[in-house]
């Protein structure tokens, strides 16, 4: 059995799921593929299973946070060393997976590596609305201040996690819009995260979980969660864990 797992959250992605799985297979042959079918009403689960992936079928839609946490629970139960999130809609290009692996292990070892759309100042960036980029800029500023390191794309879900982070996320993962909070959760537990530069592709199918009308709610919800999170006592995850500091240091 392989030691690496690609977790593919999918909600009604019947058109894109098979090609997403195939391209993970091509780019990262040493990864098992787990599709978390987040209460799809179409044939996403069947298509994924036919394409050779393991499939977790959630009985109803939990949202990206609940779906990803199921994937981390699966990774922990089956003792995988690495897990990478690759969205089912084809936005995340699996050809970056080897880069994520080498960054995770390379030099100063990290517990989580995120594929950032904004790290490369000369890159074409991500073709999204100006409002969304402003939102990402705000989160980027807040998260960078709290963690004391530069975080350019805190909303990117294209992430690789090691065993420590898998265990953490299997036990505690934010609910609704998890990406920003997950970085701070890592920080609170003294786990290290970093970024590499990636380009993202336009989604093949489906639509963003965050429509323009919801983006205001998204901003408020995440900022509230970030603020409350600063005052949250985190339980130690392991016997040898340094008990996470209640006061997350603001630099």
């Amino acid at each position, binding site marked *: *059995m392989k030691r690496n797992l690609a977790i593919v959250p999918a909600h009604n992605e019947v058109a894109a799921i098979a090609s997403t799985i195939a391209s993970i297979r091509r780019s990262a042959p040493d990864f098992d593929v787990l599709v978390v079918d987040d209460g799809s009403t179409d044939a996403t689960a069947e298509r994924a299973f036919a394409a050779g992936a393991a499939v977790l079928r959630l009985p109803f839609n939990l949202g990206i946070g609940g779906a990803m*946490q199921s994937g981390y629970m*699966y990774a922990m139960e089956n003792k995988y060393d690495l897990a990478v999130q690759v969205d089912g809609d084809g936005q995340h290009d699996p050809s970056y997976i080897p880069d994520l692996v080498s960054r995770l292990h390379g030099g100063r070892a990290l517990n989580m590596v995120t594929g950032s759309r904004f790290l490369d100042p000369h890159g074409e960036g991500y073709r999204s609305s100006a409002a969304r980029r402003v939102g990402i800029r705000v989160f980027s500023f807040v998260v960078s201040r709290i963690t004391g390191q530069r975080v350019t794309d805190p909303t990117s879900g294209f992430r690789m996690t090691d065993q420590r982070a898998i265990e953490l996320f299997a036990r505690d993962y934010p609910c609704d819009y998890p990406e920003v909070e997950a970085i701070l959760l890592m920080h609170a537990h003294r786990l290290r995260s970093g970024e590499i530069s990636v380009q993202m592709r336009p989604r093949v199918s489906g639509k963003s979980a965050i429509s323009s009308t919801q983006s205001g709610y998204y901003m408020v919800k995440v900022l509230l969660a970030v603020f409350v999170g600063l005052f949250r006592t985190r339980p130690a995850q392991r016997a040898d864990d340094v008990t996470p500091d209640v006061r997350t240091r603001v630099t």
Partner: protein
Amino acid sequence: MTVAVTLLASALSQRIEVIAVAVGICGLIFELVRRKHLMERYAILWLLAGITVLVLALWKGLLTRLSHAVGIDYPPSALFAVAFLFVIVLLVHFSISVSRLSDQNKILAQRLALLQERLEHGQDGASDPAVPEATRIEEELPAG
């Protein structure tokens, strides 16, 4: 409740109506619990509200005395304030309950999906039936 309030300070026949309403509330709550449409822990709050109305209706001078004691000249105002506070507390309590239920619901869905996968296609090699500690439902929120 509003009806009860306006009637409280008035004549005997009207007090009898208020008593009937209060008894009716308590009876309704009792019947809902008996049919298992309402859990005891939520029934207690409503029964307390019904009993409060009943006591105020039976004991004529109590509301006036209580409201004057806390410096409110118009007794029905005191009653409104208390009733409003009660409703607010109840709503917060329900929000907490809904949050806890959503969370427990999420965990159940996740456990179900993991078990189903293992049952249908799982390789038994790495099977480890231990449920991760933090997914035990009672740990997800502090008690209360």
